[in-house]
């Protein structure tokens, strides 16, 4: 099988501090003077600067036609890797060889000009992404139809709604048709219906003949749906490459940022409420090791809270709310619904809240914390407090679960032939 991408010992070093940005002439002159000074005194002549490796010693190979996910925590170096492969920035060491035409999509709508019309921006953006005018003309109708902006084609995009703008931007990029496509988390745009359409288009691109795709995403659901293989990047190094399920499981089990079992400090988070009682820390876990203790569709989820109270208090309404990326509230797990109350003592309280079955499909959700009276103002509202990743994990059927793009809320269904 042909190789599409070969990466050997690739690394990128950044210089930290003021001098990494645009220095003024004065600073350069000052640096030059001090360098000469230290040379005269017999030093090395290099001023000491803090350097960090954003990516180091990364090697892997991707065959033509593979769809590979890149996962890792924030700041692990995923985006740096894509920037190197798309030649936006240069590596410090190492080498990458790419066979085929590369299209990279690190952001939708790069180079869109607000004063230009939809039609004009399609041509401009296409050219920026490396399409030829003839190609754009040929796919023009397809792009317009996909973006659903036919009526507004000759309107300046500054008058577009956010949704229209994003749809148009994604549509141009999706019709790029390079041999190798590099995508960075751009799928989280638009409303749920358009996200589904984008994901479908991505799958289509991936399925077609010999197209190689590299996807960076925080959504394990997206990665699991699109990619057979994945690369896990940790602290700038390639931790593991292999079949997606194994890589995702490893990532989830050693996720250090706000993952299951980790205390999440919300004491300084922006909040509303009277402050009579306050959330301090919270952690969550599904208790299922195979899922990396992450929540999964229809699985259990347990929260442990640390709550500070000034006086003894009975709390009738207490719980967590799950919302999707667009802020639509989906699940309200409130003890009020069960008629239970929470008794708080002065000082620090530890409280467990258990959800028997979380009826959410795989995807990323925002969690809001709430406690209050049934009447009047709430005591504390942290909205949103943190994100959870509901992972696709062994459903009863074929071992796959549907993603949230076909609806976020699950239910139990049955079928029989009549």
């Amino acid at each position, binding site marked *: 099988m042909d190789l599409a991408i070969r990466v050997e010992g690739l690394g990128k070093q950044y210089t930290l501090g003021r001098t990494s940005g645009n220095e003024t002439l004065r600073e350069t002159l000052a640096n030059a003077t001090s360098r000469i000074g230290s040379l005269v005194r017999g030093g090395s002549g290099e001023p000491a600067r803090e350097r960090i490796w954003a990516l180091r010693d990364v090697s892997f190979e991707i065959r033509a036609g593979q769809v590979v996910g890149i996962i890792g925590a924030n700041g692990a170096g995923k985006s740096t890797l894509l920037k190197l492969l798309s030649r936006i920035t240069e590596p410090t060491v190492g080498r990458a060889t790419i066979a*085929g035409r590369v299209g990279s999509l690190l952001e939708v709508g790069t180079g869109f000009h607000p004063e*230009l019309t939809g039609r004009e921006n399609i041509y401009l953006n296409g050219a920026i992404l490396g399409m030829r005018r003839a190609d754009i003309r040929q796919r023009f109708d397809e792009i317009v139809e996909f973006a659903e902006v036919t009526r507004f084609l000759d309107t300046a995009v500054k008058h577009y709604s956010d949704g229209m703008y994003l749809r148009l931007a994604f549509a141009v990029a999706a019709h790029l048709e390079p041999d190798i496509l590099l995508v960075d988390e751009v799928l989280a745009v638009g409303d749920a219906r358009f996200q589904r359409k984008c994901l479908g288009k991505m799958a289509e691109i991936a399925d077609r003949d010999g197209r190689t795709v590299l996807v960076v995403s925080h959504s394990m659901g997206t990665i699991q749906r699109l990619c057979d293989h994945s690369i896990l990047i940790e602290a700038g190094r390639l931790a593991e490459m292999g079949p997606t399920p194994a890589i995702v499981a490893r990532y989830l089990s050693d996720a250090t940022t706000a993952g299951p079992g980790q205390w999440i400090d919300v004491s300084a988070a922006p909040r509303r409420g009277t402050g009579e009682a306050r959330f301090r820390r919270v952690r969550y876990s599904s208790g299922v090791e195979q899922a990396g203790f992450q929540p999964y569709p229809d699985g259990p989820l347990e929260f442990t809270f640390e709550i500070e109270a000034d006086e003894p208090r009975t709390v009738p309404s207490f719980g967590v709310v799950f919302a999707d990326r667009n802020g639509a509230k989906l699940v309200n797990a409130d003890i009020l619904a069960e008629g239970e109350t929470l008794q708080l003592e002065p000082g620090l309280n530890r409280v467990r809240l258990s959800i028997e079955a979380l009826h959410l499909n795989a995807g990323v959700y925002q969690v809001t914390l709430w406690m209050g009276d049934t009447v009047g103002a709430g005591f504390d509202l942290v909205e949103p407090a943190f994100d959870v990743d509901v992972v696709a994990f062994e459903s009863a059927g074929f071992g796959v679960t549907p993603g949230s793009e076909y609806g976020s809320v699950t239910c139990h269904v049955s079928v029989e032939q009549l």
Partner: protein
Amino acid sequence: MIDESTRRHGAVHPSLTVIQPRRGRAPLEMTALWSYRELLYFLVWRDLKVRYRQTILGAAWAVLQPFVTMVVFSAIFGRLAGVPSDGLPYPIFAFAALVPWTFFSTGISQAAASLVGSQNLLKKVYFPRLVIPIAAVLTGFVDLAIAGAVLIGMMVVYGIVPTLTTVWVVPLLLLAFVASLGVGLWLSALNVRYRDVRYIVPFLLQIWLFATPIAYPSSLLPEPWRTLSALNPMVGVVEGIRWALLGADTAPGPLILVSSAVAVVVLVGGAYYFRHVEGTFADIV
């Protein structure tokens, strides 16, 4: 496999890309630049569209700036100071120089600001970075054409008949382009690292305006100073255009040679410097 993919995509992009740190001098990669000529076209097209859509006077700005300057120069230098004008009416003597000068100076200031103004592109998309300042300078040709039409109108008014030497205007404008782009490349690349450049450019252009024989003829200078003054590439352009278009007896041959040599050196040097620092643009802009 490479041949196959090249054929399929019409060789627009080199199909085998090697990404590695640069060692030594970065090649200019003119073929890569050529393959992005359509992007160049669209960037110029965008700048023009946006400008004509946002400004009320639109095309008039192309004429207004050199024209008003010409009026001021005519009043102050032509009338009050009585500066000689190679036997030509002073207004057309000044305007014939101001038209290429405006092209040159606008090109420099647009190019200098171009990379910083395109940060989002630099950080998110790959294409040969040289496209950006080149597009900035090329856009000026439209203004040049409009101002040129006014210049032709003035020639008619003053009864100046074009001769065969008029065709020299074309290579002379090319020289103005080479000079403008050469300086523009240096300044645009420097501006990414040193934002001081933004403040230096207007100042630099102001001095440059008076260092160029626009308000006065270079025949005021004794030799060898006159020929040496052509180290400023705009001397060759201005004196050449007066000779080619207006029939002024400036004998610009040596001036044009010196100016051309300097302009080419500045452009080639600028292009190599640009390519040398290009790799860090996305990191520091």
